[in-house]
């Protein structure tokens, strides 16, 4: 009955009026920005991060989590109504969701997406409840040797499952790791790559880096490729499902939820991968696969459930192992560190209210999204008609004020400009910024754990192979790498992305 006890703590913490309010605000803000195309979840969370600084840690995390899955919801709405994925993970929803809308079944598509997401979110929360403590207690056996191997596995699988050239992605991890080492070396106190600038002694700011590479860079990329923006004039009617719809959708929701929950836990997995995988699965099991792409309700139900379940369970590696499995989680990790919480197994032990409160708040958040989103759809849709020329100055200024208010430092603003320019160059050279961010946030941790392992083994790198858990983790990393080199898998990977 441990789980019930834990959930009771969680619901107790999350159900306070203040926390419910922040959950609601987070969900609303997340949906609002998720609806707006051209600004992804990473930039959304990073942009709204400063709003949470003044809050107590639990309220801050609840609000950030709300922003995150609110953005997922909002992204699907625009995918269905105007064929613009508000977030990458809703690209798949565009395929059948928008077709349904064109056939006058927008209401059914939206309801499927909302109900499927809600169900998946609930299951995702339960998975966290059941799975996180097990993983956390397992990880307490970890020494620095295992942690180092785990991070190697995490980083590698993150790039294997991402899009683009693999070798460039791994090179980006290295670059991120190197950038992450800038600042004062914890062990010896040596200032590294600080060039005598006092602001650099604490290292490169995480927020300027993320904002430059994602937020500002997204604006720059959007301005370069002006998209034709469709307008939706027809009204959304009949926000409910027929019996037939329901019968067709629920098995897909179940499958999507299962698939998403598993893929979310894997390092490198996450909402995007889950929605792709679920769509492929639905197409495989469907009696009539030719209906897909022409408004099949399963093509909305499965991926939507999958991406929400994965979004939820991708918190597990972060909360139990301190390992962010994608960039969104890296930003959450940055937020936790700013709040003075070191993500990892100790959170469950030392701050059970925090861990369980956040988990429980996800359930509240999903419920709120279901209740507020469907009736408010008219408002969200109207937002889509705001032209980008009015939108991007707002995004820009909110990003800048957000960065500035962290340290009241103009150096951070200049750094943001530098990273924006750097991100622009990376873009031109076809390099993904995501692995760089993951490397950056794990850089100091990897160095510390590597150093400790080497002290333990008196400088013998074979220690990573002689410990069974570490060996298993490294072997998994090797298998993943090998898989990518095998031509057949490489082909599917290229097709999938």
């Amino acid at each position, binding site marked *: 009955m441990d789980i019930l006890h834990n959930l009771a703590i969680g619901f107790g913490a999350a159900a306070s009026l203040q926390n419910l309010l922040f959950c609601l605000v987070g969900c609303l803000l997340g949906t609002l920005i998720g609806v707006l195309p051209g600004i992804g979840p990473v930039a959304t969370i990073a942009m709204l991060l400063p709003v949470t600084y003044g809050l107590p840690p639990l309220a801050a995390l609840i609000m950030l989590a709300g922003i995150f899955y609110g953005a997922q919801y909002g992204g699907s709405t625009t995918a269905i109504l105007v064929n613009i994925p508000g977030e990458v993970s809703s690209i798949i929803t565009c395929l059948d969701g928008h077709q349904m809308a064109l056939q006058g079944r927008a209401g059914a598509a939206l309801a499927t997406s909302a109900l499927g997401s809600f169900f998946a979110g609930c299951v995702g929360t339960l998975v966290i409840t059941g799975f996180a403590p097990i993983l956390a207690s397992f990880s307490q056996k970890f020494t620095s040797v295992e942690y180092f191997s785990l991070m190697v596995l995490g980083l590698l699988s993150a790039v294997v499952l991402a899009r683009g050239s693999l070798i460039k992605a791994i090179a980006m991890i290295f*670059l991120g790791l*190197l950038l992450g080492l800038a600042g004062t070396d914890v062990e010896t106190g040596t200032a590294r790559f600080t060039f005598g600038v006092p602001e650099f002694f604490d290292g490169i700011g995480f927020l300027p880096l993320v904002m430059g590479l994602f937020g500002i860079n997204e604006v720059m990329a959007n301005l370069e490729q002006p998209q034709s923006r469709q307008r939706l004039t027809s009204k959304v009617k009949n926000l409910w499902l027929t019996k037939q719809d329901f019968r067709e959708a629920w098995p897909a929701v179940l499958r999507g939820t299962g698939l998403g929950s598993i893929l979310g836990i894997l390092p490198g997995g996450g909402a995007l991968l889950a929605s792709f995988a679920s769509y492929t699965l639905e197409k495989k099991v469907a009696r009539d696969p030719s209906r897909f792409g022409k408004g099949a309700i399963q093509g909305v139900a499965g991926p939507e459930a999958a991406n929400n379940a994965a979004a939820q369970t991708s918190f597990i590696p972060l909360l139990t192992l301190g390992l962010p499995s994608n960039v969104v989680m890296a930003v959450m990790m940055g937020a936790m560190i700013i709040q003075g919480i070191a993500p990892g197994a100790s959170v469950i032990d030392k701050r059970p209210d925090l861990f369980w409160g956040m988990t429980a708040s996800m359930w509240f958040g999903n419920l709120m999204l279901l209740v507020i989103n469907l009736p408010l759809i008219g408002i969200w849709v109207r937002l889509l008609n705001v032209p980008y020329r009015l939108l991007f*100055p707002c995004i820009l200024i909110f990003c800048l004020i957000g960065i500035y208010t962290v340290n009241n430092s103009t150096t951070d603003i200049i750094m943001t400009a530098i990273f924006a320019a750097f991100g622009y160059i990376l873009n031109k050279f076809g390099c993904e910024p995501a692995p760089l961010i993951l490397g950056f946030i794990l850089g100091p941790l990897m160095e510390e754990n590597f150093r400790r392992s080497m002290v333990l083994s008196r400088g013998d790198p074979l220690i990573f192979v002689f410990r069974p858990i570490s060996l298993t983790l490294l072997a998994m990393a090797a298998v993943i790498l090998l898989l990518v080199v095998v031509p057949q898998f490489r082909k599917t990977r290229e097709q999938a992305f």
Partner: protein
Amino acid sequence: MFRIKSPQDLGAAVLLLFFGVAGLWFGREYPVGTSSHMGPGYMPMALSLGLILFGIVIGLRAISLRAAKIRGAAIEPIVWRANLLILGAIICFALLIRSAGLAAATFVVTVLSSFSSKESRWKETIVLGVLLATLCVLVFVYALRQSISVFGE
């Protein structure tokens, strides 16, 4: 002479070599230590060497001695005006936020950045600037109580 097979990859290779060499150069004075007692220079050196290695491998794969067609993606031309306006707006924010305050900084950022989009109109931009400046002052200074001065120090 060699031919470029993939311009993007060659660019990435040059970038990686640059960071690898810069890492080695600026990190040259940090004590490396031994592997059992790693100094502050150990990891930076290892990573810089790794970057150089990646740079060489990616670079070699991007060029060819024989005449080869461009297979990889080309580097898209840089749009200078729009991006310099955005970067300029950010720099202006840094210069203005203390001396001129949030209201002026917001207005300048809005107006400057707006003109990176060809669709912007003067009147509309100025109205947006005033509105945003008011909104930001209300939200960040009064509602969220951030310590930013409204009209400069």
